[in-house]
């Protein structure tokens, strides 16, 4: 065994300039760098090297880069992995080459279900956790009729689908949905439709700019005053960009919040010092996952994928990010999730003080159980 | 005796928004003649040309070519039938060589114009004919020059050579001498005379000398309608035509023009005699 090519090379594939750049772009690269430095820069006496690339949120660009990394640059593991479409294409290439994919920020749950693979590790969250975390308690609290404004692409469909399932299982009902094409600027028409639907809750099954725009429009047209609006995927940087007057009180599920306890604050402060803004859950997960991977190499005494994977699954992740965590055989990292609500302007101590933590959702409640066909021993 | 008409229009009308540019024109062009269309500015001459070549669609009326109705044909089809037009401004392919200009026209009949898989060398067999045509208009020495570099008058000659390459039965010339100096005017006029053999020519021209020298029949248009028709002498004596078109000095012009034409004819006859 030992270290192939005498170096452990980590490829970080992220969105450098597109819509996800703030969620997991240069910030994720920084998180990996921090992990490598904290680990000591070498493993088993060999140097750890980082290469990074921009996937432009395009599956073809991403998979081509991954292919090049493993075919001609001896990259051992690929991480980052933001847009689900890119991750899907990249994991296919990686699995073919028997290389590990450490997925930080993708939302789709496919990588541990219908597209599961012995080489996939999915760390921070997924759509199931979002639906279970945010939707379930609301239905339980009597918000039974839902209307969705959904981003018209796979991620939005998946989120809407899984949330619908959760709603119906918990005794609620979906009274309508509109699918807004990617790049929609004006949501007023959809908001009017939501208003007319008579729903108790309008679920925003979208992300990033779409989420911010749709929420703003909902507030402008008075929807937020008459109806609950639930953002199903909210990143800290979206919350930062929102006017507290509009967003206050809104609930969301997150894999991480910087201001949870001393451990999170300590790491987040270091991150902010380097990167300029507080970490998103993807960036925090990125660090945690990289650490776990390096530790596994050390424990296994090799960087050979199967051995490392085995070690990663044997050892329970445990750090500021991963609480009560296990890495299941399907590659799903199950850990405590947080139900948060957005603070109003008055109760914010600083501009970074955006969430109240309402509840901790235990991992096995948040994440769906493992499928038998994905149980890679 | 019923004459042999190549081209006939019947009650041809062209209306632009609330304005009738061509008004019920019945034009008959006899085979083998040079027929001139004259008239004041805005009389509708260019519009008639545009209708005949389908650059415009007639509002009403029919166009007959060799007895067949061509009113609904498209421009290119009409050209393939043998009616070819030259333009008011010279129309050449500026960045092709002089010879290639002519060859483009010859190529059409070859039937290989869509053959994108063949080498351009298959066109070489047309070169000889192209040179012949260039020789006819006095451009042989320029065959390999780039067309943009030709002086204006020669471009005009090239255009005519290109037109001849199609072996048209009928030529439509719109102000062929416009913008030319005296020298070029007579060159082009001679050229027209020369190519009129076995062809029918319909031309628009404001230069009365050229008209007098060349035209067998003249149709005078005014306000879109035919004012009168006949040979130069008849037309130029018509008081209406003189008022509307030629003006008072026409006498002078006619005298000179006819004299010039006579001299030219005599000279030609003399040449022919000594050969």
């Amino acid at each position, binding site marked *: 065994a030992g270290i192939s090519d005498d170096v452990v090379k980590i490829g970080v594939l992220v969105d450098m300039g597109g819509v996800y750049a703030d969620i997991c772009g240069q910030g994720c690269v920084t998180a990996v760098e921090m992990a490598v430095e904290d680990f000591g820069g070498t493993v088993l006496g060999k140097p750890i090297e980082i290469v990074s690339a921009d996937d432009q949120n395009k599956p073809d660009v991403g998979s081509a880069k991954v292919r090049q990394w493993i075919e001609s640059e001896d990259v051992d593991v690929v991480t980052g992995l933001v847009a689900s479409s890119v991750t899907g294409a990249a994991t296919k290439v990686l699995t073919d080459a028997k290389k590990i994919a450490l997925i930080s920020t993708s939302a789709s749950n496919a990588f541990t279900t219908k597209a599961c693979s012995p080489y996939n590790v999915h760390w921070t969250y997924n759509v199931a956790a979002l639906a279970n975390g945010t939707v379930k308690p609301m239905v339980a609290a009597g918000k039974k009729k839902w209307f969705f404004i959904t981003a018209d692409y796979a991620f939005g469909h998946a989120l809407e689908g899984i949330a619908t399932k959760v709603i119906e299982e918990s005794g609620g009902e979906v009274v309508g949905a509109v699918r*807004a094409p990617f790049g929609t600027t*004006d949501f007023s*028409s*959809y908001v009017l439709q939501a208003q007319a639907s008579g729903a108790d809750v309008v679920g925003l099954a979208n992300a*990033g*700019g779409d989420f911010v725009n749709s929420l703003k429009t909902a507030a402008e047209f008075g929807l937020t005053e008459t109806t609950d609006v639930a953002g199903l995927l909210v990143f800290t940087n979206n919350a930062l960009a929102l*006017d507290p007057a509009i967003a206050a009180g809104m609930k969301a599920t997150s894999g991480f919040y910087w201001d949870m306890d001393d451990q999170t604050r300590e790491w987040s402060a270091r991150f902010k010092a380097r990167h300029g803004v507080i970490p998103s859950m993807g960036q925090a997960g990125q660090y945690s996952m990289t650490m776990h991977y390096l530790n596994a190499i050390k424990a296994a005494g090799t960087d050979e994928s199967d051995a490392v994977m085995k070690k990663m699954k044997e050892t329970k992740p445990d750090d500021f990010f991963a609480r009560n965590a296990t890495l299941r055989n399907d590659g799903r990292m199950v850990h405590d999730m947080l139900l948060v609500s957005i603070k109003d302007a008055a109760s914010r101590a600083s501009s970074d003080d955006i969430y109240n933590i309402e509840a901790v959702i235990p991992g096995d409640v948040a994440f769906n159980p493992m499928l038998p066909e994905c149980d890679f021993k | 005796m019923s004459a042999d008409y190549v081209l006939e229009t019947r009650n041809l009308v062209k209306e632009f928004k609330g304005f009738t540019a061509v008004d019920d024109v019945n034009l008959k062009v006899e085979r083998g003649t040079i027929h001139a269309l004259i008239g004041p500015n805005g009389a509708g001459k260019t519009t008639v040309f545009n209708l005949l070549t389908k650059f415009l669609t007639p509002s009403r009326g029919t166009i007959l070519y060799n007895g067949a109705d061509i009113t609904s044909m498209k421009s290119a089809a009409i050209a393939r039938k043998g009616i070819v037009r030259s333009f008011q401004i010279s129309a050449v392919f500026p960045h092709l060589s002089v010879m290639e200009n002519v060859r483009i026209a010859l190529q059409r009949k070859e039937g290989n114009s869509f053959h994108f898989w063949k080498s351009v060398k298959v066109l070489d067999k047309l070169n000889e004919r192209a040179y012949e045509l260039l020789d006819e208009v006095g451009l042989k020495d320029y065959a390999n020059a780039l067309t943009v570099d030709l002086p204006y008058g020669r471009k005009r000659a090239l255009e005519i050579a290109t037109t001849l390459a199609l072996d048209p039965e009928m030529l439509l010339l719109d102000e062929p001498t416009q913008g030319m100096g005296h020298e070029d005017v007579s060159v082009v006029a001679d050229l027209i005379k020369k190519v009129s053999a076995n062809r029918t020519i319909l031309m628009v021209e404001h230069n009365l000398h050229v008209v007098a020298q060349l035209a067998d029949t003249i149709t005078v248009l005014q306000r879109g309608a035919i004012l009168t028709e006949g040979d130069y002498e008849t037309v130029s004596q018509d008081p209406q035509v003189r008022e509307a078109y030629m003006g008072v000095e026409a006498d002078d012009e006619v005298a000179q023009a006819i004299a010039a034409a006579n001299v030219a004819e005599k000279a030609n006859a003399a040449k022919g005699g000594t050969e």
Partner: protein
Amino acid sequence: MATIFGLNLFALSGQLLVGLINGSFYALLSLGLAIIFGLLKIINFAQGAMYMLGAFFAWMALNYMGINYWWALILVPIAIGLLAILMERFLVRPIANEDHLYSLLLTFGIALVLQGAFTHIYGSSGLPYQIPAELKGGTKLPFMYLPNYRAWIIVSSLVVCFSTWWVIEKTKLGAYLRAGTENPQLMQGFGINVPLITTLTFGFGVALAGFAGVLAAPVYSVSPDMGSNILIVVFAIVVIGGMGSIGGAILTGLMMGVVEGLTKFFYPEASTTVIFLFMVIVLLVKPAGLFGKEA
């Protein structure tokens, strides 16, 4: 409740109004493009970026200098107009006599640079900008709740659009403009300072985008890609209206807003595509566009 084809008429009226609001926005943006194309024969691909810049400038003015919305509404378009004047003078003018393709590519490049630079500096997730206090709240119409700010958008953009149209189509200055684009040299010969007019026109056309950007800042998030998303749709609108037609651009903008709004109601997935479908049909039936003059 009145229904048509089993649909709620009230809901439909709401959708129509919302469509009209978006349409007035489109009108403003396509007007700028149409002026620049119709009068200067420049296809300004940077118009979207300038719109984005308008929104960003408004945000920067507020956050760095404390300039409020109302002042921004006046100052930002001026600033952007000046920027455009520099751009015209130093980048566009040197290629004024080349194929239009080149000005398209040049402005495309400028758009890339601007968008890239703002993404780099401000990130991609967008910045917040508040609706000015005076326009907060809304009015309850029988069929919908109309936010005051949206009403303001429709009123202000229509006023700007129609006054611009009037100046260009009905005044002597407008005639100079139109003639100057056709044959600048001759207009100079007539004693008109064409380069100056050209520069100012370009500046004005782009300033319209800046104005639209400021209008947009409170309702859409201020983000670097806001311009590139909308630009191509606005292009289609200008083409549908007829490339040279100023009035056509305005009317078509309004119309397409409505068409898009209705599509969002009946078949939302197609709402970003419907305008292109419309464009194909229009161009095939009426080659020069709805309001364009046939060549």
